[in-house]
């Protein structure tokens, strides 16, 4: 105690001790000190694991985060349309959308519109119901752009720059599928970045038709991305849907959506296709050696040939098939890329303009075996 007293005695204001007139000032000083130490102690306490106190703080933070984004999360109802796509029965339930523009642009998951509804209704967070038009579809990221005519400017959410995302950070999936008045939320973490050939981030929060089209937010309520079902192994419109609520889910980064918005408003976006096949089944371990070029494909037109080994795309080093898919898979039709190949010992650079084709990526779909023991 004595040591401590000495220590604190050196404090310039504490040395004023004894002057009655300073009484209030002193108490304030201690208060300042107390609060400072309290803050330090507070952080130390709550940074330990398994502490209920921290969990309660986090709970408040989750709620606050959802509250913060809620004014930008809308409920979408659709009327009419197909009952099923292929063999999959489609839902008619409400889906979720995210406001991206004060003038009335809203993005949602293309999954909610696969049944080609006759009419779309958007219910804004304040309860106002508005008819909506489907403006365009991003067929590569399975996102749709809707437009409503709002009575007053809409609230656009704050976003997290892609570079700030960290694997392991909180990721809260927000939807408005159950109740138009209150959002539904599920909490997880960011499981990985740079998934689905660079098109999406991954989360283990519960994601399903109950929040497809809604935002994935960080613990401060900023948008990480928009929730959509996706799979790296297939470009099928329903790909990734069967993984709903499994702890494997994806969101298209908000930064990308906002960056692409001017282009998206003008019309549909399609994944860019090059038209080559590469060696090996598993892209993770396959060599980036061209085994075939489709006739009239962008690759063929540019002059790529079977046997060429791709070594660089737009300045990025290529080592495996996966690298090629990652560099090309994220691009849209119309994008131009420079591809460097090794033909024998010769290094040749080609300029290729990616096109819209119905052969997916131009690299075949893959049906891998995933191992996990199971008990029925």
């Amino acid at each position, binding site marked *: 105690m004595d040591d401590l007293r000495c220590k604190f005695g050196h404090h310039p204001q504490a040395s004023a001790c004894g002057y009655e007139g300073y009484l209030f000032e002193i108490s304030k000083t201690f208060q300042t000190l107390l609060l400072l130490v309290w803050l330090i102690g507070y952080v130390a306490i709550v940074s330990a694991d398994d*502490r*209920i106190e921290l969990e309660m703080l986090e709970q408040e933070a*989750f709620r606050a985060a959802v509250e913060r984004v809620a004014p930008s999360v809308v409920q979408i109802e659709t*009327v009419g349309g197909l009952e099923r796509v292929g063999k999959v029965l489609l*839902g008619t339930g409400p889906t979720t959308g995210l406001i991206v523009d004060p003038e009335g642009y809203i993005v949602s998951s293309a999954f909610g519109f696969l049944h080609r509804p006759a009419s779309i209704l958007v219910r804004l967070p304040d309860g106002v119901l508005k*008819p909506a038009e489907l403006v365009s579809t991003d067929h590569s990221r399975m996102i749709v752009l809707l437009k409503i005519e709002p009575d007053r400017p809409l609230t656009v959410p704050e976003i997290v720059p892609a570079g700030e995302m960290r694997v392991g950070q909180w990721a809260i999936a927000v939807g408005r599928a159950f109740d138009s008045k209150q*959002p539904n939320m599920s909490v997880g973490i960011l499981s990985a970045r740079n998934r689905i050939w660079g098109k999406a981030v991954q989360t283990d929060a*519960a994601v399903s038709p*109950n929040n497809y089209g809604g935002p994935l937010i960080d613990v401060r309520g900023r948008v990480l991305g928009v929730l959509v079902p996706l799979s790296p192994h297939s470009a099928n419109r329903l790909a990734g849907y069967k993984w709903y609520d499994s702890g494997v889910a994806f969101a298209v980064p908000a930064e990308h959506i906002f960056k692409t918005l001017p282009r998206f408003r003008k019309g549909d976006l399609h994944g860019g296709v090059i038209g080559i096949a590469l060696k090996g089944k598993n892209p993770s371990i396959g060599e980036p050696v061209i085994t075939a070029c489709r006739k009239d494909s962008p690759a063929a037109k540019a002059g790529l040939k079977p046997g060429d080994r791709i070594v660089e795309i737009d300045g990025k080093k290529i080592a495996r098939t996966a690298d090629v898919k990652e560099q090309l898979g994220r691009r849209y039709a119309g994008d131009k890329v420079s591809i460097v190949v090794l033909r024998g010992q010769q290094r040749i650079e080609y300029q290729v303009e990616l096109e819209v084709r119905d052969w997916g990526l131009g690299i075949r779909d893959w049906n891998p075996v995933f191992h996990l023991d199971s008990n029925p």
Partner: protein
Amino acid sequence: MQILFDHLAAVLARRVDSKPPGLSRRKLSAGTSLTARRASTAAKFFLFALLVHTCSSHSLAAGASTAEVLDRIQPNVVKIYGAGGFRGLEPYQSGMIVSADGHILTVFSYVLDTDQITAVLADGRRFEARLLGADPRLDVAVLKIDAAELPHFDLGEAVEVDAGTRILALSNLFGIAIGNEPASVQHGVVSVKTGLAARRGVFNSVYRGPVYVLDAATNNPGAAGGALVTRTGQLVGMIGKELRNALNHTWLNYALPIGQLRESVEAIRAGRLVAARQDEPKQKPARSLRLEMLGIVLVPDVLERTPPYVDHLRSGSPAARAGLRPDDLILLVGGRLITSCKVLNEEMEYIDFEDRIRLTVLRGGELVELDLQYSANGEE
């Protein structure tokens, strides 16, 4: 250290209620009422305590860990074995002890449809259980085992929670806990609080009241009857039966709020008949309103989900007088969303033929609201 956590609590309270911080007020009053010297001593002591705390963050944990909470409440959850075991019907479910002398709250299901119900406690003790009673409208049942001084949940102390509340779900899902081991525990948050009856026909459930939708995969085979608690172990709800959302074909994970069940449980325990609840699902009226009574003719219903466009109107009909026009798309009837001709016809069955209804239609990109009422003689 309790003081410290009082402070934390106070800060939390301030955040939630926007009240001035209790911490500062208390410290300030102490400071002003004592002499400066005493105040400084007291404050220094407090500082010292805080520093000590800061330096040894682990050993001085004043709060309980999740493991400690579980140690306390896991014994309240029991494994129930009964009928089933064929066609994918697991012969087991979960339950929670709600009295020291052996009352067990669980779901009312085929598992209880036998004379031989066994309840196995977390410590492995096995008891023959008797079905004391059930409330089929809520799908709840109360069992009784002959035991005393059991650890249990007090239904009276159950709490109501909001969306975002962190929860633990305790159940014997998939029958994993087989012997003298506690049931499984899962974590999550309350995703949203919603009503199962909010949309007609979406959930095939007897229970129609409010539920806590959860973001964890809790409602698996064997989990029904398990306990939903807060992270501090307060009872919140009972895990319901497996349920599928007919709208989007996903499985729903949810729990029934204890507040909805308490009355029934008390009535069953007291041997009283449970009175019919007031919020029964809406009944169809004796005579329903039909579209033709209003003079509305829709486009031919040829698709699975034909959008309910108005084809034409009988002249002089209530609909025509109200201003409905051909090519209007009917979107809402009395605030309920109409997604197809079929749904519209179904919805009409719930409306009494004498009631006034409000239609919301889409006309040229605008939403238009119209009030209609049937009159027997065609006149108003």
